[in-house]
């Protein structure tokens, strides 16, 4: 798993975000085992306490559960995963819209741009 941390945001919240994405994309399969705190910390080059904190938050959100002596596992609740997926998607869209607004595109214009781009890609795909 390729980790990418920005230096001006708390690492733990970035980690929570990236872990959610990994679950949603299926990289960590539902019911699958997560790497141990130490493994993940070493792999990502970050502090184990940070990893612990991130896992804690994911557990509170119900995305991850701990099985004593076996470690941490992704939930098998596919509905839960779907909810998270939608949350992440909505967050992406919000960010996208904010970006477009800062470029000067209103909502209607943004939708137009999206259509144009989609058509353009379809034409390219056919030719």
């Amino acid at each position, binding site marked *: 798993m390729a980790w990418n*941390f920005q*230096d*001006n*945001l*708390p*690492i*733990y*919240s970035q980690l929570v975000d990236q872990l959610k994405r990994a679950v949603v994309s299926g990289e960590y399969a539902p019911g699958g085992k997560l790497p141990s705190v*130490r493994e993940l*910390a*070493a792999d990502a*080059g*970050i*502090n*184990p*306490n*940070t990893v612990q904190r991130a896992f804690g938050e994911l557990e509170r959100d119900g995305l991850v559960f701990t099985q004593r002596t076996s470690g941490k596992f992704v939930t098998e609740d596919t509905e839960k995963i779907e909810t998270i997926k939608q949350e992440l998607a909505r967050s992406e869209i919000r960010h996208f819209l904010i970006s477009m607004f800062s470029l000067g595109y209103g909502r209607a214009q943004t939708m137009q741009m999206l259509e144009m781009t989609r058509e353009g890609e379809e034409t390219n795909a056919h030719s």
Partner: protein
Amino acid sequence: MPILECRNLTKHYGPVCALDGVDLAIEPGRIVGLLGPNGSGKTTLIKLANGLLQPTSGEILIGGEAPSPKTRAIVSYLPERIALIDWMNVRQQLDFFQDFYADFQREAAEQMLAHLSIPTGQTVRQMSKGTREKMQLILVMSRKARLYLLDEPIGGVDPATRDYILHTIISNYNPEAAVIISTHLIADVENILDDVIFLNRGKIALQSSADEIREKQGKSVDALFREVFKCWEN
């Protein structure tokens, strides 16, 4: 109980004040960055923790006790200088550490030596500076100590070794031990730090968790450091 505690710790070298009323408590399980410009008192603090220096006033406590041979048995110190015995070869250095330190883990050390391709027959005298630094780090990190004091651990090594060193610090993580890293290469280490302490002219300028700085200030620890210790005025 904090593994390292300073109570109004002050150290004067003649007229110069190296540390001025420092209050600090570091709990086990934390990786702490001791950050500050040259002359800020970082090395003085570390030397006091080792018993190499005596405080002028105030106290420094390791696991609740003043520095002594007993506390040195649980403190693993990586000095800024190369403190290896030059006529010894690798095997003899391992013997030495094993002899004096009950918490030395020889197999771990040998494994790391293999990872870094350091030949066991070589004497310290024959080693390059980079190899000596790696050797010293391996010896220090192979001890299962309660407090690690690393004075500029990544200063003189290449980026790949730097990564290996940080990786070793993380993999050695022990919730009953604390690691104090004194450095000015902040950008390289900040991701592995729990907490940071900014030291300026013998006083603590800032003490916070690394994530809190990023959250509250919206910038990296490195960026904040540059701001706090700006050398010129606009």
